[in-house]
């Protein structure tokens, strides 16, 4: 099942199992979303459950907050990463803090779906990775699946969470297919996963970069290097225990994400792992990611995005210490 379809199936299951679940966003109804993630849902659940909204991101999130106050569990779609900023105020000053401000009396079970990241040849504001901006805000949970099974199960868990969850969807992986078992018993939403065991170095990634890191590990294996690959899955919180356990084994860590490296989530992981594993590390934690520049035009985005060679180059640098 394709990743986009897995999310669709997960939303369908949520709509079926809980009458309080709502889907909201621009074009989510008849069109099924610009990526068709909500395809067919309005047809089956009606305009009251799958709500086409005015073109106003702050309005979408702000009214979702009101609906949550009334007892609903809205799942809202922001059409593209770069369009979330009109809603940023509502997310940061209202959604994230309502539970604390009410001394725990009010819950905010709102999921905000954001297709994010590059690699699809889009125009500007359609390829960004703003996850660190959300992870920095207490009160929000930030997650990103990398495969269909996680996409399915993490969406179930995000909807069931009484906390607001920012659910970043790796749009360049929407069409990647993998098995989804709707009967499986998933691990916790925040838990990282060891995708591939290895002994020489740990590659940690999430969302669209997990597949790249698996490819890098394949390529490195041909050179006789054994890389461990972690799918962090959750960006806030980060499952540092799993990262620590891996680094204590491999003694080297490279963090890979599409977002700019400067003050990105890789910086936090590098700092924390340095604190936790200082005496285990054979090399400084290295990061591979975007530059401190606006996301470039599509014709040169491959130069901006981490690719196989940049990951392997970082692996080489780490192993050279």
């Amino acid at each position, binding site marked *: 099942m394709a990743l986009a379809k897995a999310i669709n199936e997960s939303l369908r299951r949520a709509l079926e199992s809980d009458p309080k679940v709502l889907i909201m966003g621009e074009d989510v109804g008849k069109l099924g979303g610009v990526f068709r993630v909500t395809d067919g849902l309005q047809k089956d659940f009606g305009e009251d459950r799958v709500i086409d909204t*005015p073109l106003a991101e702050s309005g979408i999130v702000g009214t979702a907050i009101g609906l949550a106050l009334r007892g609903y569990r809205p799942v809202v779609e922001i059409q593209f990463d770069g369009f979330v900023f009109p809603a940023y105020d509502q997310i940061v000053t209202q959604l994230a803090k309502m539970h604390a401000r009410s001394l725990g009396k009010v819950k905010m079970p709102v999921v905000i779906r954001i297709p994010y990241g590059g690699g699809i040849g889009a125009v500007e504001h359609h390829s960004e990775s703003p996850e660190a901006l959300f992870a920095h805000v207490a009160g929000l949970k930030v997650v990103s699946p990398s495969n269909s099974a996680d996409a399915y199960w993490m969406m179930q868990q995000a909807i069931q969470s009484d906390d607001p969850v920012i659910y970043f969807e790796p749009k360049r992986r929407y069409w990647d297919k993998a098995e989804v078992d709707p009967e499986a018993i998933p691990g916790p939403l925040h838990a990282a996963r060891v995708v591939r065991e290895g002994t020489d170095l740990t590659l940690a990634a999430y969302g669209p970069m997990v597949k790249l890191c698996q490819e890098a590990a394949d390529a490195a294996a041909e050179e006789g290097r054994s890389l461990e690959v972690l799918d962090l899955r959750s960006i806030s919180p980060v499952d540092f225990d799993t990262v620590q356990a891996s680094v204590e084994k491999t003694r080297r860590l490279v963090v890979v994400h599409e977002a700019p490296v400067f003050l990105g989530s890789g910086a936090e992981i590098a700092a924390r792992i340095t604190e936790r594993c200082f005496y285990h590390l054979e090399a400084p934690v290295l990061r591979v990611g975007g530059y401190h520049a606006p996301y470039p035009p599509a014709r040169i985005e491959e130069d901006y995005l981490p690719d196989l060679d940049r990951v392997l180059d970082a692996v080489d640098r780490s192993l050279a210490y």
Partner: protein
Amino acid sequence: MTESTAARKPRRSAGSKATGTTGTKAGAAAAKAGTAGAKRTTRTAATKGPATELVQLLTPEGERVETAAYAEYAQYVAGITPDELRGLYRDMVLTRRFDAEATALQRQGELGLWASLLGQEAAQIGSGRATREDDYVFPTYREHGVAWCRGVDPTNLLGMFRGVNNGGWDPNSNNFHLYTIVIGSQALHATGYAMGITKDGADSAVIAYFGDGASSQGDVSEAFNFAAVYNAPVVFFCQNNQWAISESNEKQTRVPLYQRAQGFGFPGVRVDGNDALAVLAVTRWALERARRGEGPALIEAYTYRMGAHTTSDDPSRYRHDDERVAWEAKDPILRLRRFLESAHHADEGFFGELEAESEALGKRVREVVRAMPDPDRFAIFENVYADGHALVDEERAQFAAYQASFAEAEGV
């Protein structure tokens, strides 16, 4: 303990209690407009109320206004009893007393900041008393009078201004949402909540408060639009108190605020915000309309903030005293008192008892605030997440260890 430890530890534990010191007239419209039996699904709602000039039922001299153009609204207070009128008066007097006490407490250093409602009592009490128990209220940070009408203990409002919490009450206890500091955000929350009421098939309504300054915010316009598109049962209640800190109406809008509604597809009405009776009538009209499924309405309560924006503000820098003097002549409390007296609805005994009740309220507020404890230090980590978060757990443990180190340093 080591010398360096001894020197370092007490310095940060000196216990500084930072409380923070931040700080057109139009002709009478057709009475039938806006009252046709529209359903919630109606997309082409009437956009005009029965009257579009300043609705007033009591003059500043306390005389009843019997203008036919206001009859559509006046019918909502036609059966009001002397007891209810005295109740409105009592609410306004006690709210003003509470507000004055809070201002004094700020001056005495007990509160970090206070946003006074002085002058806006009629707008708040008139509208607050129009709400039904199952209606839901979304305030700004100045709706102390509305909170009073909702049965919220006024001392609960002081916690955030004292700096012991960032909200502090259960919004569902009195259907009175937490104060919202970011201007206009709550208009969207109110609209979403109202959309939920429609989905539930309930017949209650929502009222969203905001000021003239908030009318410039995108969120308020987005709320108007969502409310219109979904025909949500929400009443937007704008207290136009003439000043958004130092910015006058001229800097906020080029059209009278109540006229904004028409462009979004619902009626807007300007009411004399210093006339509790008119505010009560117009708000009842709007709420009942919303409950019937006829969608949103905008009320512009034309009033005046007699004090500063907050205790950090200095109005003498941007407005003249004569403006205030002119508005003092329209005082909402004095106006209703004159009416009560001339209609023989209240005697000296009533006013005397109210004075005593007022003083008792002030005393209670003072005592409660002074006794209000600082929150537990670990409250930092409470309620950040409903489901928990590993980073919060980790940092709470670090903080606990750090706190424990003081006890060790002191040999306890």
